[in-house]
Every structure is written in C-alpha cells, then in structure tokens.
C-alpha cells in the first residue's frame, strides 16, 4: 500500500505542480487510513489475546462430576487454597475414603483412594481433612484435581472450587453466576 502511494506521488510530481496538488490530499488520507487500520488491529489483537487466555466464570457455576455425571453447583472461591467437596457419612478405612454425596444431589455412595491429608484453617477453626482426586467438567474444561473432604451440610454449596483449580485457567467476575454451563466433549448435552 505504501509503495503504491509513493509511486503515485512520484508520477504526479513528474507531471507538474497542478496535478500533484490535486492528488496529494487523497494519498495522504490513504496513508492515514493505513495507520488507523494498523492501530485498530493492534488494539483488537491485544484485547483478544488477553480474553482468549483465561475463561471468565461467575461466583457460582454448575459442574459435572465425572465419571458419574452428577451435576453440582460450585462456589468459586478465590479465598480457598484448595477445592473441597461435601462428603456425608465420611469414613476412612485402609486409605480409602467412603462417603455419600448430599441427598439433594442424588446421594451417590463413592469410594476413593486418599492421596493425602491437609490441615485446613479458617478464622475460627483448624482441622485435618482427607484429600482425594476427582474429575469434573467446568465450562469447556475437564479438570482433574485434588479436593479435601468434609461435611458441608451447614453451608450452601456442595463443592468449593479454590485457587488450585482457578490459577491456570480462570478469571472470576462476581457480577455473574451460572454464566458458563458445563460443555466438555465428555458430557452429553442436557
């Protein structure tokens, strides 16, 4: 584009002054256009790159627990170091955690190997909880992660998604909730 402008300019120069003055403003505006296109493209690509990297989720999102396909609402919690699952009637025997999901979400009985123990602290308590590995679908991502197990019957959400999951893929916007329904290829549409 620039090159054609220049050659245009040169030709008009050779043809004399009058001609040159008539063409020159147009080639100038073409030059400006070119600059504008470049700036706009630059801004657009910068914005897009930022948004494309991380997925924005709300303060509460539905997830699908795999492979059992149990749908649970999850509190997205940037204050929690690790994620945590509501485990009712929890028993740990021979390094296996046996528990039920809350009745409200089907009450499924699960049995998972304990991969560790974690000390959990908050403003008013301190306790050790067993850690298991689970898989769930959050938005378009299938996430394989560790969660601590405890009885969460006094609180509202059966799953807390903490910083261990959010760190790599997500940005949280509390203005929204349920803005990203589970859409992993492994989960059939509902």
């Amino acid at each position: 584009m620039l090159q054609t402008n220049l050659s245009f300019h040169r030709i008009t120069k050779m043809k004399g002054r009058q001609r040159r003055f008539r063409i020159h403003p147009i080639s100038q505006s073409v030059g400006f256009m070119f600059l504008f296109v470049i700036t706009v493209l630059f801004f657009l690509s910068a914005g897009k790159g930022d948004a494309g990297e991380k997925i924005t989720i709300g303060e509460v999102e539905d997830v699908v627990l795999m492979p059992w396909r149990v749908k649970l609402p999850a509190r997205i919690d940037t204050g929690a170091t690790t994620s945590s699952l509501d485990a009712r009637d929890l028993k740990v025997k021979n390094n296996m955690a046996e528990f039920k999901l809350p009745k409200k979400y089907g009450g499924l009985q699960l049995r998972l190997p304990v991969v560790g123990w974690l000390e959990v602290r908050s403003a008013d308590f301190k306790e050790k909880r067993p850690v298991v590995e689970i898989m769930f679908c959050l938005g378009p991502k299938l996430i394989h992660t560790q969660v601590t197990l405890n009885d969460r019957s006094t609180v509202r959400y059966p799953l807390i998604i903490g910083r261990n999951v959010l760190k790599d893929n997500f940005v949280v916007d509390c203005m929204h909730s349920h803005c990203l329904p589970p859409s992993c290829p492994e989960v059939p549409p509902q």
Partner: protein
Amino acid sequence: MDVMFIPMLAMLSLLVLGTANAEEKITLGAVEDVILLPWGVRLPARIDTGAAKSSLDARELVIQDGMAEFKLPQEFGGVQLRLPIIEWKHIRSPDGRQQRPVVELELCIGSKRIRSKVNLTDRSMVKYPLILGRNFLRKNFVVDVKRRMTAPPRCPDIP
C-alpha cells in the same frame, strides 16, 4: 475525501470503544495491598470470592453506645479505631453461626477510593487482616488468582 472520512470515523469510534471496554473492570490478584482511609494504614487483603461480605481483623473489640472500639493488629501499627456500628450481620461458616458488628470503611485499592461495609472479627488465627468479599468486588473488579500484589494502591491525594 468525504468518502474516506466515514470509515475513518467508524474506526476511530471502534478504537475508543475498545479501550473503554478494557477499562471497565480492574483485575485483582489473590492478595492485594490496600490503604485504610483516612488513617493511611497499609494492609494486605485477601481477595475472596468465597466470602459474601468483607471482614477486618479487630483486636480487643469493645461495643459501647453503638460504637465499635478496636485495635488493628500490632503488625500493622496497632492503631486504635472507633467507628459507628451500622448493623449486625449473621455470618455462616462451616461450623456454625455468629453475629458480627458491621462498620463502614473507606479504602484505596489500585486507583480507586471505595467506601464499603466490613464486619469486625478477631482474625488473629489467619494470615490476612482484611478479607475483601463479594459485596466489595461485585461492581468494579475481576479476580485472577495467578496474580498477587499487581494493583498497588495509588489514589490521588494519598501520599
């Protein structure tokens, strides 16, 4: 010339719109420094989408005639504060219920001065003296926990 102007104007407006959009919400990390106003006390705050309300570490809390009197933790200067209680809040946590006094605070985070309600409780067991919850975050912020201390307080008129 006139024909050229139209796409140029269109593109200019697109550009302006694009940048305005990007400025809408400030991204905070998992922990950010804030300044309590008017005392100028700088505190690290946990940015917590799991907390419905913000909460401040109040030591030696005494309630008298609708006023809350308390000290900030020694670590952060131990300033004695006295603020009117605007309401009482039920707090739900995994092990039960609790009532806490709520006061209004002004603080500077990033380039914003914000007045917000915080409840008072002894937080000596936990790491951060201030929790900023969803009541604070909802309007102006998004949270990216990969970051930390990336929006230092720099409000105009604050040294």
